[in-house]
């Protein structure tokens, strides 16, 4: 990595690339809007960023599908992502980097050495721990190994996607690879989870940007997600919320309610318990989000989202067993069996009561007879 780049401020780099201050303010304004900051705060943010130095970023991919990286790079607003590569110095990403094999590994070593204690680690994918971690290896080393080593000199770890944040799909029952989220394995570093399957690209860049701007870990929720993006539920911000409030629900995917754009709660929407920015930031450059295209929220940015019963069963219904939801047939079986047992026990209790009654009546009669004699 060329020395001069690391010492440069972002402003200097932008100037060199001919990106004007107004263009950068525009970008920061958009980011501020995403972070629910006042739009005018974008100007202050731009000034701060221009004065900041680009941090070195090491991007580690483990047990993942690359969807998160796709999300980040295949955005409809490439200029924002172009921008992000001006703001950070992506020194290692085995998917994106041109180098391969030992050269690629050498790039990681070099970035770590040069920025020890200051670099940012981005993790994509869960970490398999079963059978010695053999289910995910690169350059002959297990993911656990690579993660532990890289994390040592990190200023912070950003987990991109639900897999690295909470385990995600590999973590789903029965979890054959013993997949774990990063937070289970690294205890001594600040961890920021940017969950979602995949996360919204603007949320990924926004989180990185915020870290670069302030040099600090942002306010996190109980699942270590940045509150600015994960502070509200989908339901809180959903444009179909008024229909929920009016008690108007689509009952199937093709009924009148569905066509009228009514609330998808009864079709299993997890919006009320899912914290993410989909409803406001939307996807594909602000085009739409799942609910807008008529599909309930799956709750992909929540821990264990794969193991919370059917995607298509309402939140207020029961979940039974593995990914199963209570159905009338289950309920009848369950209730029937319980009721039958209840009847049996009652018969026993009554028989006992009758028996006791008989015994006591006999006792009393005997006593009476004795008295009369």
């Amino acid at each position: 990595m060329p020395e001069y780049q690391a010492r440069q401020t972002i402003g200097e780099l932008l100037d060199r690339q001919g990106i004007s201050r107004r263009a950068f303010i525009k970008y920061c304004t958009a980011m501020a809007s995403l972070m629910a900051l006042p739009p005018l705060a974008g100007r202050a943010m731009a000034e701060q960023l221009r004065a900041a130095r680009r941090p070195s970023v090491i991007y580690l991919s483990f047990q993942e599908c690359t969807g998160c990286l796709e999300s980040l790079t295949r955005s409809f607003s490439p200029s924002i992502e172009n921008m992000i590569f001006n703001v950070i110095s992506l020194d290692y990403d085995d998917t994106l980097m041109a180098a391969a094999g030992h050269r690629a590994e050498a790039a990681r070593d070099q970035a770590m050495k040069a920025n020890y204690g200051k670099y940012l680690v981005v993790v994509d994918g869960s970490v398999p721990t079963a059978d010695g971690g053999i289910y995910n290896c690169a350059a002959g080393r297990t993911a656990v190994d690579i993660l532990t080593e890289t994390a040592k000199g990190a200023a912070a770890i950003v987990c991109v996607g639900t897999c690295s944040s909470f385990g995600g799909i590999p973590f789903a029952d029965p979890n054959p690879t013993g997949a774990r989220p990063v937070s289970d394995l690294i205890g001594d570093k600040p961890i920021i989870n940017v969950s979602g399957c995949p996360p919204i690209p603007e949320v990924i860049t926004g989180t990185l940007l915020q870290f670069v701007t302030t040099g600090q870990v942002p306010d996190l929720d109980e699942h270590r997600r940045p509150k600015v993006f994960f502070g509200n539920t989908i339901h809180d911000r959903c444009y179909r919320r008024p229909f929920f409030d009016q008690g108007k629900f689509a009952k199937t995917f093709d009924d009148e309610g569905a066509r009228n754009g009514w609330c998808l709660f009864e079709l299993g929407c997890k919006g009320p318990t899912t914290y993410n920015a989909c409803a406001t930031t939307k996807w594909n450059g602000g085009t739409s989000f799942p609910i807008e295209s008529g599909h309930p929220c799956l709750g992909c940015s929540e821990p264990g989202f794969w193991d919370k019963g059917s995607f298509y069963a309402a939140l207020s219904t029961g979940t039974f067993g593995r990914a199963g939801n209570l159905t009338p047939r289950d309920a009848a079986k369950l209730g029937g069996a319980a009721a039958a047992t209840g009847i049996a026990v009652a018969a026993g209790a009554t028989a006992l009561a009758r028996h006791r009654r008989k015994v006591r009546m006999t006792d009393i009669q005997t006593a009476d007879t004795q008295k009369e004699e």
Partner: protein
Amino acid sequence: MSRLGDIPIRIERPDFAAMAGTIGGGVTAILAEIAALLDRLAAGDEPQAIDLKSLPMNPGDREQLIEALGSGEVAITLYADGESTIRETGVHGVWWTEHRDGDGEVTAAFIEIARVPGILIVDSDELQRGAERLRSAIGATRSSE
């Protein structure tokens, strides 16, 4: 890359126009807030803005809001990494700003309550850099003479 709008698909949407003012009907509330912010600006406070993207508004609401504010005397186009438009509304000091990226997608949209939209103001660094650039241009001319 083709724009999403170019793909010939039909999107079934609820009749938002009919719903306007009945649900999500925050238009009145937004107008009231703008009025309050104008008062504060006149009293010497900092300029403020209302983010249009974070408000759960439907297109019907949006049209109502545009209609209520009307159109004014100034329209500015900013060519900085995509076109941005800044229009003064019928109310002086109320600016409707839309930033677009290189693909023409809206990246930020807000109503700014300010004497002049902040992004237009050139800062001291830029003035200095401009001056330096001119001087170096003069120097180049002179040396070439």
